[in-house]
C-alpha cells in the first residue's frame, strides 16, 4: 500500500503515561497505514493501548515520539488550533458512551458539525434530513437524547460522525454499551454508511461481527501490534 493513497499513516508511535512515580508505556512504537475507504478493526485485551492509538489517530492526543500524516498532510508540530480545524474537516468520532449533547435534539446533534463548517441553512437541512433518514430516525429528529434508546443514540452519533463526509471515522468500542441485537444493527449500519461515503474507519472492538465486516483486523497486545 503506497503512502499516497493512505488516509492516515502512523510511524513508530510511542506514548507513555505518568502514573504517580512510574510511567506506563501504552504504545511501544506502532506503525500503521489506513487506506482511503478502508475499514480497520483494532482488537486486543483491555489496557493494550487501543484507545491510546485511536486518540493519536483521531488527532485528539499527541504522541511522545513517531510521525503522523492525515490525507497526506504531515501533522508533526501542528498546534492545537490547526489540529482542531483538521478534525473539524476530516475526522468523525463515535464514542462508546454516545456523547450526544443533551440539550440538543437528534436533529441539532447531527447538524452541529455542519454548523462548525459554516454550511448554509438550506444545505444543512437537506443533509441532516438525509442523514437522519439513512440511520432510520426521521420520526425522532425532534427528540432529545434522553428520550432515545441506546441504539437510537448511537445511530444519531453515527449520523453526526458521517454528516460531513469525513476522510476518517474513529470509533472506540461503539457497541460496548449495547445489547447484542442492537449492536448487530449498529455494526451493519456503520459498515454500510462508511462504505457508502468511502470513509476510512478505525474501530476498536471486541465484537466478532464488527471484525468480520472489516478489511483488516489488527491485534494489539501491550502496546505493540502483532
Amino acid at each position, binding site marked *: 500500500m503506497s503512502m499516497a493513497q493512505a488516509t492516515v499513516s502512523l510511524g513508530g508511535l510511542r506514548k507513555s503515561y505518568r502514573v504517580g512515580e512510574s510511567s506506563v508505556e501504552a504504545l511501544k512504537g506502532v506503525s500503521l497505514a489506513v487506506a482511503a475507504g478502508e475499514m480497520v478493526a483494532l482488537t486486543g485485551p483491555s489496557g493494550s493501548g487501543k484507545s491510546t492509538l485511536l486518540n493519536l489517530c483521531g488527532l485528539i492526543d499527541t504522541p511522545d515520539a513517531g510521525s503522523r500524516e492525515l490525507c497526506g498532510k504531515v501533522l508533526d508540530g501542528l498546534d492545537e488550533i490547526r489540529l*482542531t480545524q483538521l478534525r473539524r474537516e476530516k475526522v468523525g468520532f463515535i464514542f462508546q458512551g454516545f456523547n450526544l449533547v443533551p440539550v*440538543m435534539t437528534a436533529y441539532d446533534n447531527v447538524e452541529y458539525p455542519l454548523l462548525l463548517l459554516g454550511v448554509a441553512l438550506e444545505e444543512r437541512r437537506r443533509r441532516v434530513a438525509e442523514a437522519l433518514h439513512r440511520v432510520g430516525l426521521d420520526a425522532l429528529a425532534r427528540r432529545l437524547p434522553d428520550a432515545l434508546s441506546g441504539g437510537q443514540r448511537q445511530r444519531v452519533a453515527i449520523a453526526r460522525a458521517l454528516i460531513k463526509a469525513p476522510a476518517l471515522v474513529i470509533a472506540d468500542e461503539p457497541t460496548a454499551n449495547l445489547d447484542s441485537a442492537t449492536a448487530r444493527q449498529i455494526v451493519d449500519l456503520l459498515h454500510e454508511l462508511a462504505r457508502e461515503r468511502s470513509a476510512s474507519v478505525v474501530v476498536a472492538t471486541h465484537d466478532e461481527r464488527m471484525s468480520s465486516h472489516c478489511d483488516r483486523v489488527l491485534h494489539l497486545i501491550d502496546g505493540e501490534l502483532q
Partner: protein
Amino acid sequence: MKWLIFAWKNVMRNRRRSLTAMLITAFGSAAVLASGGFALFTYESLEEMTARDTGHVVVAHARGFEGDEDVPLQHGLADATALAARFAALPGVRAVAPRVQFSGLISNGDKSAVFVGSGVVPEIDFRLRGPQMSFLAGQPPASKAPAPEVVIGNELARLMKAKVGTLLTLLATTTEGNLNAVDVIVSGIASVGVPEIDKRLVLADLASVQKLLLSDKVGTLSIYLKETADTELVAGRVRESQPGLTVKTWRDLAVFYQAVRALYNRIFGILGVIMICIVLFAMVNTLGMAVVERTREIGTLRAIGTLPGEIVRNFVFEGMAIGAAGAVAGMLLAGAATVALLFAGAEMPPPPGRSVGYPLLLSFSPTLYGAVTLMVIALAAGAAWLVSRRAANKPVTEALAHV
C-alpha cells in the same frame, strides 16, 4: 442565532441554578438602579432648592462676594436698576431679583437677638422662592405698607415672642458707620426648614432696608432662569457684558449641594462596587459549576472540531443571556419601585441640620438604566470567559475522561 439558542438551552439546563444567578443579578442591578435613582432625585431636588434660594446666576460688585466690607454695601451695586433691566432682557431669564444682605440686632423692647436679613423686592422674591420657603402665618411684606413690614423665621419669632402684627425694632450699622433703627411690623412667619437659619431670618422690603442703611445700592442681583440647564450659558453672557462685576452660579454658592453630592457619590459608588462583586461572584459560581459539569461534553465538542475559543464564546453567550435576563428583571423591579414610591408618599427623615424631611422619590434616568444593563452583561460575559477558558483549553482526552 443558532449559537444564541444553544446558549439559552444550556441556561435552561439547570433552571434553578440559572434562576438563582438571574435573581441575584436582578436584585443587584435593581439596588444600583434604585439607589442611583434616589441619588439623582436628591441632586435634582437640591439643585432646584439651591437655585430657588440664590437664583441661578448671582451678580455682584467685583469684590462683592469677598465679605470684607468695612461698612455695609461698600461693595454694593450702584446702578442696580439699569443692570437688572439689562439682565432681564437676556433670553431665558425669568426675573431679576435685587437683594441686600444685612445684619444687626432685632428687639421686642424686652430682649434682643442677632438677625441675618435680606432686603428684597417682595413681589419678585417670594414668587420665585416657591415651596423653598413655607409660611406658617401671615404673608410677605407689602412694599407700599404705611409702616415697614418684615417676615421673620419661626425660631426667631419664638425667641421674640412675636406673632403676625407684633411691633419689633431692627438695629443696624449704616453705610456711614452709625447705628440706625427702624420699627417694623411682623407681616408673616416663615421657615426655610433649617433651624439655624430660621433662628436669624429676617426678610424685609428692599426700600425699607436701603433707608435703614442710608444707601440706594443693592448687594446682589439674583438672575432666575426658566431652565436650570441654561445657567452656564447665561452666566457666560453676563460675564462677557459686565467684565467689571463678579458673576457666580448657584453651583458655586451651593455648599450643601456640593457636600451632599460628594457624599452620595461616594456612598453609592461603594454600593455599586459591592453589587459588582456580588453579581460577579454569583456568575462565576453558576457558570463555574456548569463548566465543571459539562467538561466531558466540552471534550466531545472539541474532538469533533470545536475550537477552544468557540467553547468559550458559547459560555460567554450563556453568561450574557443570564446577565441580560437579570438586568431586565432588575429594571422592572427598579421601575416598579419608582412608580410605587410616586403613589406611596413616603418621606425621608430630615437631613442633618434641617427640620423637615423630603419626599422619598426615585428619578428615572435612561442613561443610568442603559449603563447598568451594559455593565451587568459585560460582567456576566467576563465571568463566563474567566471560568470557561481553562476547561476549553484542556487536552481533549483529559476532558473526555472527566466524569
